[in-house]
C-alpha cells in the first residue's frame, strides 16, 4: 500500500506539472478546448487517486476546483485574467495539499476554505444556482470519488444522442506497442453509431513506402449518448502514441461515403519512425516509455562510473610506465576501454539530467506570491524550459533562485505608479531563462525595473564598513558589493525579502555548485543576474597541466586555445603586468604559479605555455603554465565537504597515480589576479 501511495504522489507531481502547463497555455494562447480538457483531466486524476487513499481534504478541494474547470469546459464560464489567477492559486494550493498529505503535515484549512468559496462563487455567478454540478454530490470516500462520470456535459441528464467528430492518426509506435486501431473502433462502435473513413493522403507510392512506418489516418463520426470523456477513455491506452482530436459536432453526421469495415484498413503492424503527417501536428508530443528508478541507485551508479574513470586512468598510467609500444594489443584494448567508459559515463549522466521546467514552474509560484505581498503586478516569462541540467543542480538552485526572484520583485521592480511615470507598462516583467552555453548552463533572471541604485549601494557599503569611504569603485564593482556578506539594501526588513539571508548566501550556494553568479544593471532599464553552472557535478574534461611542480587541471570548456608564445608577442605593461598579443589583440597574462603562491611573480614567460581562456562576460585571459601533460576526463571531488572553498579552485580530482590534483576555476583565478579596490579589501579580510 505504501508503494502504491508513493506512486500516487509521484504521479501527482506529474499531474500538477501538466496542470500548470495547461494554465500557462490558456493564459498565453486563450482557451482552446483541448487544453482546458487536459487541465480538467489532471485535477480529476488527482481527485480520483486522492479518494482511493481517503485523502478527504484533498478530494474536497480538488472537487471544487474541478467544478470550475468543468464550467470552463462547458463554456459556462468565460475565462478572464481573474479566473486564470484564481486557477493558479488553486493549483498552488492543490500542490500544497498534496505535499501536506505526502509528508503527513497539516494542510492549511483556512486557505482551502477561502479558495473553495471563491471557486464556488466563480461558477455560481453566471450559472443559476442548483445547476452547479456540485449537486452531483460532495465525493464520499466509499465511492472512490469517481464522481466526474456524473458531471458530464449534459448527455446523461438527457440521453439525447450527440455527434462527435474524431480524428485519429496513429504513430508507428502505436503498432510497435501491440495496439491495433481496429479494436479501438470496435469499442467505439459499441457506444453508438460509428462511421469511419480512412485518409490515405500521406500514403507514398509503393517504391517510397517504408513498411515500418504508419501512413494512415482516420476520421470517425460517432453518434452516441456517451460523453466526450468516455470517448477519450477508449483512447486512454494509446495516449501519446497517436494524435487524437475529439470535438462535439453540432451537425448531424453528413453522409459519409460507404466505408468498408475498419478491419481492412489496418496497415501491417510496423515499427519505425512517425509519419510525416504526425510530425506536422503541433500537438504531436509522443512521450516515450519510461521507468521510475530510485535516485539512490542512479547516484550509486554515477559514483561507480566515477571510480571506473579513475581506474581507467590508473591503468593507462600503468601501461605508459611499463613502456609498452602504442601498437600492442593491450594499448588498443585500453583505448577501447576508454571509449566505452566515456560512453557509459555520458549515458549515466544523461539519466540525471532533467529539464529545468519544474524548477521554473516553482519559481512562477514564488513570483505570484511575492507580487501578492508587495502589491506589484508582475509577469514572469520563462525561456528555455527544456534545458537539461543535473538533478542535484536543479534541487540546489531552488533557494538561490527564490531569493533572487523575491529580491527582483521587492527591490528590482518599481510600484506601478512609478513605472507609469517612467513611461513603462504598469506590469513589471521578470524573465527567467536557461540555456546551454559552451558546456555550461546559463540561467538568467532579468527584471525591467529601476536598476541598481548605485549611490545608495555605495552609501550603505560605507556605513556597514564594507569599503573605506574614499574607495574608488567602478560600476561593476559597486554592483558586486551586493554579494558581500552583511550587505542588505532595504532599510526596512520587509516580509518578502530580508529574511536574514543576503545575496552573499546566494553567491556561496552557487559557488558550492561550481558556478558563478554575475550581475549587470542599467539605471531605469533593469537588472540581470546571470548564473553560470557546470552541466554535471561528477566529471569534466580537463587539461592536465604542470604549474611550478604541481599538477593541476584546467576545464577544457573554458580554454579557447593554447599557445607557446613567441618572445616578441609578450609585452610588459606598467609595473607588474604582462600582456600577450593574440592576432593583434592584447590579452593579459595570469601566471597560475604566482596566483597560487607557488612562485614569485616573474616576467619571463619564454618557456611557459599559455592557455587562452574566455569568461562568461567574454573577458579573455591567458593563463601561464609550465607544460601541458594530457587532456583527459577527470572525476570531480569536492573540497567543500572536508575543507572549504579555496579561492581560484573549483574542486579536486584524483589522478591515475592516486594523487590529488586541483581543478582550477579559470574565471575566479583571473579575477583574483586583478588588483582592484574591492578584491584587495576582501583579500585583507581573509
Amino acid at each position, binding site marked *: 500500500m505504501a508503494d502504491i501511495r508513493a506512486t500516487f504522489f509521484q504521479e501527482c507531481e506529474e499531474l500538477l506539472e501538466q496542470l500548470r502547463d495547461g494554465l500557462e497555455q490558456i493564459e498565453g494562447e486563450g482557451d482552446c478546448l483541448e487544453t482546458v480538457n487536459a487541465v480538467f483531466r489532471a485535477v480529476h486524476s488527482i481527485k480520483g487517486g486522492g479518494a482511493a487513499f481517503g485523502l478527504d481534504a484533498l478530494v474536497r478541494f480538488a472537487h471544487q476546483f474541478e467544478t470550475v474547470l468543468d464550467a470552463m469546459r462547458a463554456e459556462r464560464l468565460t475565462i478572464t485574467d481573474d479566473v486564470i489567477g484564481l486557477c493558479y492559486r488553486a493549483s498552488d494550493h492543490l500542490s500544497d495539499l498534496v505535499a501536506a498529505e505526502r509528508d503527513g503535515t497539516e494542510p492549511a484549512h483556512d486557505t482551502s476554505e477561502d479558495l473553495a468559496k471563491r471557486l464556488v462563487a466563480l461558477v455560481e455567478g453566471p450559472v443559476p444556482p442548483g445547476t452547479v454540478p456540485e449537486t452531483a454530490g460532495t465525493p464520499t470516500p466509499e465511492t472512490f470519488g469517481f464522481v466526474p462520470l456524473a458531471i458530464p456535459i449534459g448527455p446523461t441528464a438527457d440521453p439525447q444522442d450527440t455527434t462527435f467528430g474524431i480524428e485519429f492518426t496513429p504513430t508507428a509506435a502505436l503498432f510497435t506497442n501491440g495496439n491495433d486501431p481496429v479494436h479501438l473502433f470496435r469499442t467505439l462502435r459499441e457506444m453508438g453509431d460509428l462511421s469511419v473513413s480512412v485518409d490515405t493522403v500521406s500514403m507514398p507510392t509503393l517504391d517510397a513506402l517504408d513498411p515500418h512506418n504508419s501512413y494512415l489516418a482516420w476520421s470517425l463520426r460517432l453518434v452516441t449518448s456517451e460523453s466526450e470523456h468516455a470517448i477519450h477513455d477508449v483512447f486512454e491506452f494509446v495516449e501519446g502514441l497517436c494524435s487524437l482530436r475529439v470535438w462535439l459536432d453540432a451537425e448531424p453526421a453528413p453522409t459519409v461515403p460507404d466505408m468498408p469495415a475498419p478491419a481492412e484498413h489496418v496497415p501491417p503492424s510496423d515499427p519505425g519512425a512517425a509519419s510525416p503527417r504526425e510530425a506536422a501536428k503541433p500537438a504531436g508530443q509522443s512521450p516515450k516509455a519510461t521507468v521510475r528508478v530510485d535516485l539512490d541507485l542512479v547516484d550509486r551508479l554515477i559514483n561507480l562510473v566515477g571510480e571506473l574513470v579513475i581506474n581507467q586512468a590508473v591503468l593507462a598510467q600503468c601501461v605508459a610506465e611499463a613502456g609498452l609500444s602504442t601498437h600492442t594489443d593491450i594499448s588498443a584494448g585500453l583505448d577501447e576501454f576508454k571509449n566505452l567508459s566515456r560512453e557509459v559515463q555520458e549515458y549515466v549522466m544523461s539519466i540525471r539530467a532533467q529539464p529545468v521546467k519544474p524548477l521554473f514552474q516553482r519559481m512562477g509560484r514564488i513570483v505570484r506570491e511575492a507580487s501578492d505581498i508587495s502589491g506589484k503586478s508582475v509577469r514572469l516569462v520563462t525561456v528555455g524550459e527544456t534545458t537539461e541540467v543535473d538533478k542535484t543542480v536543479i534541487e540546489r538552485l531552488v533557494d538561490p533562485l527564490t531569493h533572487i526572484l523575491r529580491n527582483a520583485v521587492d527591490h528590482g521592480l518599481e510600484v506601478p505608479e512609478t513605472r507609469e511615470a517612467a513611461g513603462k507598462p504598469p506590469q513589471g516583467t521578470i524573465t527567467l531563462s536557461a540555456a546551454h552555453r559552451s558546456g555550461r548552463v546559463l540561467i538568467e533572471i532579468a527584471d525591467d525595473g529601476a536598476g541598481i541604485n548605485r549611490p545608495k549601494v555605495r552609501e550603505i557599503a560605507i556605513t556597514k564598513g564594507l569599503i573605506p569611504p574614499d574607495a574608488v569603485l567602478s560600476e561593476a564593482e559597486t554592483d558586486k558589493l551586493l554579494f558581500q556578506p552583511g550587505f542588505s539594501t532595504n532599510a526596512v526588513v520587509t516580509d518578502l525579502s530580508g529574511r536574514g539571508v543576503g545575496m552573499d548566501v546566494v553567491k556561496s550556494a552557487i*559557488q558550492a555548485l561550481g558556478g558563478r553568479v554575475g550581475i549587470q544593471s542599467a539605471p531605469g532599464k533593469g537588472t540581470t543576474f546571470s548564473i553560470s553552472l557546470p552541466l554535471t557535478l561528477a566529471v569534466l574534461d580537463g587539461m592536465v597541466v604542470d604549474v611550478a611542480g*604541481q599538477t593541476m587541471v584546467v576545464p577544457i570548456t573554458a580554454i579557447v586555445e593554447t599557445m607557446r608564445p613567441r618572445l616578441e608577442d609578450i609585452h610588459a605593461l606598467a609595473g607588474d603586468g604582462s600582456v600577450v598579443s593574440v592576432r593583434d589583440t592584447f590579452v593579459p597574462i595570469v601566471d597560475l604559479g604566482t596566483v597560487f603562491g607557488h612562485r614569485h611573480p616573474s616576467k619571463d614567460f619564454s618557456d611557459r605555455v599559455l592557455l587562452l581562456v574566455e569568461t562568461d562576460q567574454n573577458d579573455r585571459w591567458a593563463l601561464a603554465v609550465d607544460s601541458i601533460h594530457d587532456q583527459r576526463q577527470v572525476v570531480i571531488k569536492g573540497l567543500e565537504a572536508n575543507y*572549504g572553498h*579555496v*579561492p581560484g579552485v573549483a574542486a579536486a580530482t*584524483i589522478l591515475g597515480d592516486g594523487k*590529488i590534483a*586541483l581543478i582550477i576555476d579559470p574565471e575566479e583565478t583571473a579575477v583574483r589576479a586583478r588588483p582592484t579596490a574591492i578584491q584587495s579589501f576582501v583579500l585583507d579580510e*581573509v
Partner: protein
Amino acid sequence: MSASADPAASDNRELVTFRVGEQDYCVDIMAIREIRGWTPATVLPHSPGYVLGVINLRGSVVPIVDLAARLGLPPAVPTPRHVIVIAVVGEQMVGLLVDAVSDILSVNDASIQDTPDVMAETTKEFVEGVISVDSRMLRLIALGPVLPPPATKALA
C-alpha cells in the same frame, strides 16, 4: 573483584595516544577512522600554514593538518616515519600528522583533569583536559578547534 567485573562502566573512554614534538597527546578513539603512513599531500593554495595539503583517501579528498604547527610547536618535516591519524568530527574528515601513535588507553572520565590555567590561548583552545598516566601527562585534544575553518568562513 566484583566491583571491577563490570567493564562496560559508562564513564570509561578509550583514548588513542600519540606523540607530537616531544609531548604526549590523545583523542577519543571513537573519533578516529584509521591510522595510515605519510603520503605526500597536494598543496592547497592560500591555506593556513598548518594545512599541509590534501590526500586521496579511497576517493575522498582529505585535508592534512600538521598538528605540531597547529599547536604552536615547531612545524613537522614529514618523513615516511610520520603517521596520519584520520579523524572525523561531525561531517568533516581530517588527517592529523603526528610523529607516532603510541597506545590505546582506557581511562575513567573522572581521571581527566581540567587543563591547568597556563595563560596561553593556544593551549586553552586546543587542549580539553589532561590525564596523568604513569607519571606522564597526556593532553586530550579538542578536535573541533583543531580543524581548518569550515567552508562557510571562506570568502571568495
